[in-house]
């Protein structure tokens, strides 16, 4: 087993490009995209529609600035447009009387959060106006409450969750991209097994005294370690070199990374046991990786997904639990107890995949 394991590192040393590319892509994606909203709330330019007077617009700005995540600034339309055009911000808001429009310059995961935030504030306001028509005077009663935006946030949540949804764009991006790109690293490492079967080095090993489980373990051990190292290095890099705030339970993040890596290694093994042609794998792996990442919340927070089917599917994906656990620890500051269930789910998912994969392979080689 040791020989097979060590050989994989030798091969990595000789052909490191793919893994380095995945590492590099993660770093570039996260650092470039996160650079926009380095620290503090994100500035959002706001311009009012002509139908609104300045007074009304100011009132809206105050309402909007109740949240912590965004800093809304009123300005003229041309100013706001030039902000977006020059790429200083990814989006601006156009206030209408009973509605709003988003001016989007470039894709930013924060857009979903912004949109949902605006929707909430607006629907609240409109409800209030409706109420006012039947019960005059209710506004003045509510006014004080509305000027206490923190209260508004916790009372009204679109998702109806107990915890209010905290969105940390930086960490969402870091965790999402890290867990996404590492799928490639892990699965393409496992493709080596398929390649060895094709080139005949696998047969050479089989007819040597090395046992088959040792061969698998050598490969799986390598794939696990290369994936795990990638995640760990990226977390270390962003925490210490880029100064990301990852909470004070770093070891727990690493433990989550290990469980997630295990589940992806197992899933990868299952995939290569189902699909045995290297060319097909070259197509299937990106589809699986991207699909899982989209549905599982690596590209935008899963909290913004409302489609029942997608939500149900996401429950079957390891990346969902990985992200959930990482966010829980780093953003909400939770401890091991809070993430025990996602971790167990990851381990369980991995074990099941592994068991099926081994059965399949044995059955195949026996026939």
């Amino acid at each position, binding site marked *: 087993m*040791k*020989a097979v394991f*060590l*050989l994989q590192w*030798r*091969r990595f040393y*000789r*052909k490191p490009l793919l893994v380095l590319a995945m590492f590099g892509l993660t770093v570039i994606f996260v650092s470039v995209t996160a650079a926009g909203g380095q620290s503090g709330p994100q500035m959002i330019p706001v311009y009012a529609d002509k139908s609104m007077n300045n007074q009304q617009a100011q009132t809206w700005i105050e309402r909007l600035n109740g949240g912590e995540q965004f800093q809304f600034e009123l300005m003229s339309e041309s100013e706001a447009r030039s902000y977006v055009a020059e790429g200083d911000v990814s989006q601006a808001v156009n206030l209408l009387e009973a509605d709003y429009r988003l001016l989007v310059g470039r894709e930013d995961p924060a857009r979903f959060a912004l949109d949902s935030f605006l929707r909430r504030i607006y629907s609240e306001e409109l409800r209030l106006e409706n109420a006012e028509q039947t019960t005059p005077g209710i506004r003045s009663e509510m006014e004080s409450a509305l000027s206490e935006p923190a209260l508004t946030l916790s009372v009204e949540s679109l998702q109806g969750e107990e915890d209010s949804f905290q969105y940390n764009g930086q960490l969402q991006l870091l965790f999402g991209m890290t867990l996404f790109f590492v799928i490639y690293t892990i699965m393409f490492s496992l493709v080596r097994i398929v390649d060895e079967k094709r*080139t*005949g*080095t696998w*047969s*050479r*090993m*089989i*007819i*040597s*005294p*090395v046992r088959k489980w040792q061969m698998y373990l050598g490969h799986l051990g390598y794939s696990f370690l290369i994936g795990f190292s990638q995640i760990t290095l990226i977390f270390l890099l962003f925490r210490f070199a880029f100064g990301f705030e990852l909470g004070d339970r770093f070891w727990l993040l690493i433990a989550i990374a290990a469980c997630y890596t295990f589940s992806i290694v197992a899933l990868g093994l299952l995939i290569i046991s189902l699909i045995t042609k290297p060319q097909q794998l070259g197509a299937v792996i990106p589809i699986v990786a991207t699909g899982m990442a989209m549905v599982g919340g690596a590209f935008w927070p899963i909290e913004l997904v409302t489609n029942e089917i997608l939500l149900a599917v996401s429950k079957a994906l390891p990346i969902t639990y990985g992200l959930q656990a990482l966010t829980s620890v780093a953003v909400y500051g939770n401890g091991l107890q809070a993430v025990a269930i996602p971790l167990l789910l990851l381990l369980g998912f991995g074990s099941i995949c592994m068991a099926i994969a081994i059965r399949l392979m044995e059955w195949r080689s*026996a026939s």
Partner: protein
Amino acid sequence: MLETQQLTKKFKDTIAVDDVSLVLRQGESVGLLGPNGAGKSTAIAMISTLMKPSSGDVKLNGKSVLKKPGEMRRVLGVVPQKIALYEELSAYENLKFFGRLYGLSGNELEQRIDYVLELVGLADRKKELVKNYSGGMQRRVNLAAAMMHEPEVLIMDEPTVGIDPQSRNHLLETIRKLNQDEGMTVLYTSHYMEEVEKLCDRVYIMDHGKVIAEGTKEELKAILSDQETVLIDFDQNYPELFTKLSEIEGVQQATAEEHSLKLIIPKGTRLLAALFHEAERYGAQVVNVNVQTPTLEDVFLRLTGRKLRD
């Protein structure tokens, strides 16, 4: 020391190996001949415990290896038909890995690597990546990898396919030395009759999964001892004439090549009169007539009705 008993392998729609019984004695060098698809590689896969037979048995020193492959895996070296190496690694790194698979380490491993590299004549280029080697050099590493653990029995599946004459001679010479000087037992598979004639004491001929003949070279040639081979060269190709000639009474086997025709006939057949008579009728010019005693190639042709190579 190694034998197969009624070894059979059935795939969905073919019987690749059919009731094959081979014997390899200690220190012997045995050839396994057969055209494409004869079942040679499949037989080797079963002997080397890579594939389970549909029926029959493989025995090493009298003990079946099917349930307990361990001993076989220690003493057997296999040179696969396809080059099976890690291309992105150097020859040295490949050999190191294959040595480790057999539990070699440290000094012992290094010495063994040096030895096999010397053996295949690549000692001075061991640091180069396998993918940058020529086909012949890759073949040599392919052999070296099977030699790392000093196998007692070496099975080679067409080790000289697609390699230059120089590498080929080097390889054959190496194998001959291993067999004669070091007493290694060798099973050698090839399409090339000359190689087998040169290397092997005994030969099995396979076709369509079956062993159709076996024996020493002399025994096999004796099959054709009452026959002779006539090679006739013409000035050009005459398809109709060739057909006509192959129908002459007594001709047992006829093979046409571009300008020549090869006939196997019983000794004493009066062929020449008929030959010149027919040639005259077709206006063909006979350039050369050569009467030979049969080669193993002819034996093969006679037995299978086919040539070894297409």
